């Protein structure tokens, strides 16, 4: 077997012991995975705000739900997604925070924070004057709102850090959590991201002509752009030794990460995908895993013509001709582009794919782009009985690239 040892993880390896998610399929990991397995998109008409004057009219909106646990003040919608996901992940990990509060950190990604509520504040200011714009609307407007809300809600005392590197935010946050755990800065990390739909991002991507009028069709020949979505994802991370001591069962191993930058353009990727391919190679090196050992790819896969072409070029550069036999999926085809939290929910999807030995599909719509040379998972889940390793890619505005490498926590 080429590449890494496919045996059991080592005590110092960083493992995933809990997952949480709020997605357009519903509140909770089970809702997400059941929806993802069906391969039917959640992208459709929405009412988070009045989209009638926008160029496009579809998005993937989270249905109404409850954050569970004690109520909290001044929560933006993105904060609510984040807190619900974190509480679910902590419960799934059977984590007693009383025993490790000061050694637990939160590493979060968010691109817009509470911008939705910021827009309500601004609208009230414009229409009725500043005295009628309630300041509580912007109390948690900052980018760090969701991560801080999680830290406050579950009561952590370790490092709390929000990364706002556009669409790579959450993947970078999870990567930073990996390093913090390896260094021993914290014993447990709640890592993930959260973002909510808002007019600024919806109008902004439309202004860039990056949004498809139909649900996005990543890597298809007729792709015309992305679809926006909202939601959150959280992973509980700790060393295998720490998990074993408290009797927790690992779901997967977070084996490596890397970030790079194209340093090319604010909104367009480098067409040869060199920044992304460099990030994939560095992440695999960080994990000590050969490209030959990667069994599937949860791609960034936005559905924009340029991004998908650059990403396919990056994958081709790393995997060569073997790319044609590596299953590739894009969670964004199902729940839209979650921006700063995309990397978190896609990490959840990658972990579940490894744990359950199947890759979720994309809707079987549109014609494959033969020039990209990808083995797309379409229509129904792809069962991988001997799956060991998967990567999740996040490629952002400003050329920021982040790649996470996960492996199974039990021998394939």
């Amino acid at each position, binding site marked *: 077997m080429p590449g890494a040892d496919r045996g059991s993880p080592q005590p110092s390896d960083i493992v995933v012991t809990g997952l949480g998610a709020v997605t357009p399929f519903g509140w909770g990991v089970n809702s997400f995975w059941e929806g993802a397995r069906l391969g039917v998109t959640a992208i459709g008409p929405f009412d988070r705000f009045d989209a009638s004057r926008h160029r496009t009219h579809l998005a993937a909106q989270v249905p109404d739900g409850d954050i569970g646990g004690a109520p909290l003040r001044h929560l933006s919608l993105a904060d609510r997604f984040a807190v619900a996901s974190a509480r679910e992940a902590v419960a799934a990990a059977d984590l007693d925070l009383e025993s490790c509060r000061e050694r637990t950190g939160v590493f979060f990604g968010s691109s817009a924070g509470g911008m939705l509520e910021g827009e309500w504040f601004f609208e009230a200011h414009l229409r009725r004057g500043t005295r009628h714009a309630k300041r509580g609307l912007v109390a948690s407007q900052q980018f760090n709102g969701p991560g801080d809300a999680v830290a406050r809600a579950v009561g952590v005392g370790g490092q709390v850090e929000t990364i*706002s*590197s556009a669409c790579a935010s959450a993947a970078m946050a999870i990567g930073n959590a990996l390093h913090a755990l390896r260094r021993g800065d914290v014993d447990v990390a709640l890592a993930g991201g959260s973002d909510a739909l808002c007019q600024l991002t919806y109008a902004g991507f439309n202004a860039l002509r990056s949004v498809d009028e139909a649900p996005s069709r990543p890597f298809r020949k007729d792709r015309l752009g992305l679809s926006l979505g909202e939601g959150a994802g959280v992973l509980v991370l700790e060393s295998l030794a720490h998990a074993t001591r408290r009797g927790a069962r690992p779901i997967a191993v977070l084996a490596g990460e890397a970030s790079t930058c194209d*340093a090319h353009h604010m909104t367009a990727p480098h067409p040869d995908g060199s920044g992304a391919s460099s990030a994939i190679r560095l992440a695999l090196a960080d994990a000590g895993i050969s490209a030959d050992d990667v069994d599937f790819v949860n791609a960034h896969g936005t559905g924009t013509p340029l991004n998908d072409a650059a990403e396919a070029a990056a994958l081709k550069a790393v995997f060569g001709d073997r790319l044609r036999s590596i299953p590739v999926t894009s969670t964004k085809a199902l729940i839209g582009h979650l921006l700063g939290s995309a990397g978190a929910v896609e990490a959840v999807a990658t972990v579940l794919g490894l744990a359950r030995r199947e890759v979720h599909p994309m809707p079987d719509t549109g014609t494959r782009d033969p020039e990209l040379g990808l083995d797309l998972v379409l229509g129904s889940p792809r069962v991988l009985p001997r799956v060991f390793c998967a990567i999740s890619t996040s490629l952002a505005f400003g050329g920021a690239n982040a790649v996470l490498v996960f492996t199974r926590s039990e021998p394939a």
Partner: protein
Amino acid sequence: MKRPVAAITGLGVIGAHGIGRAPLEEALLAGRPLASEVDRSTGYHESDSSRLGALVPKLDVSRWLPPVEARRLSVPSRFAVVAARMALEDAGLTSFDGRRVTVVLSTAFGALLFTEKLVRQILEEGPEAAQPFYFSECVANAAAARVAIALGARGANVTITEREAGPLLAVARGAQEVREGRADIAIAGSADELTGLLHALLDRFRSTARARRGGAEAARPFDAARNGVLAGEGAAVVVIEREDEARARGARVLTRVAATGAAFDSTAPVSDWGRGHEALARALRGALAREGRSIGTVDRIVSGASGARGGDRLESATLVAAWEGSSLPPVLTPKAVVGEFGGGLLAAAVLAACGAPFGRPVACETQDPELAVAPHDGSPLPAPHRLLITSLAAGGAAAWALLERP
């Protein structure tokens, strides 16, 4: 094997003091707030609002950022590119492998002016009026991306948004990238702008200092009369390298990043400070201990105290708890001069580590009797051996960095 030492070899800074280190040193020695009138004509302010901010004056930055390049950038992006190029020049770095250069910047609120303009377009003129230029520059990571494009930095490009704790988290991340071998050079720092809207919002949260009983409107760290911050803007960027590699190329080492740490006070409300000083003190001591340092060897503190009632109270209590009853070393409070923006704190701390003298903050007259900490009185001090920078953010985040004389 001995771990590599992360060293700061360059500093670039732009702020209310102007451009570069020399005018900032002069301002810190004078101890006077760098305050000027904020534009309150935008309609966001209440009639009795605070009036002042530490605003960047009109400056000729063309040496660092040609006008044709500046036109495409938001204000924080301009600040960041100017500071980054200045820092590289200060470090004497003229060529490098861009693949091994990482950029880690923090921002509290991002490019607010462009964000405001874009939201106005959407709400007033309709979403079809939204300009793509504003959108691409109003993402939080625009400044870091612009720095990467300007310098050809193709390593990790990270934007940290943890309010007041962000700049020290950025320095920590930059030092880690270098120490752990993922980068040869880290460009780390902070960039923020102060708009009329932000100033008015801070004022509505009663965060900004106000004039009282005929007195001046000023930030008064640890003072009995403190009643808020002097909101500020600008950028500070440091160049971080391995010390052995910096010396091998003949570079001057300004200071070492000997330890960093972070924690969270979950007793804090969303927009204020909490009372979790005991836990924060334990976290601070633990962070130093992990790098083999003890709190007793710290001989200077550059405090993030800003004149906020709750923030300074927590800062004081945390320092007292961390020192466990022992006398504190001299405490410098640069936010009394440069205002509340993280880059100013970072730049002032690097200068202090290099031995720059600080004057008494002139606005601070009466120490708060409830606090055990007072700003240094301005008397001459020897250059420090170990300098602790502290930054406690509203909302709960906390970060520290220990700078050490090479």
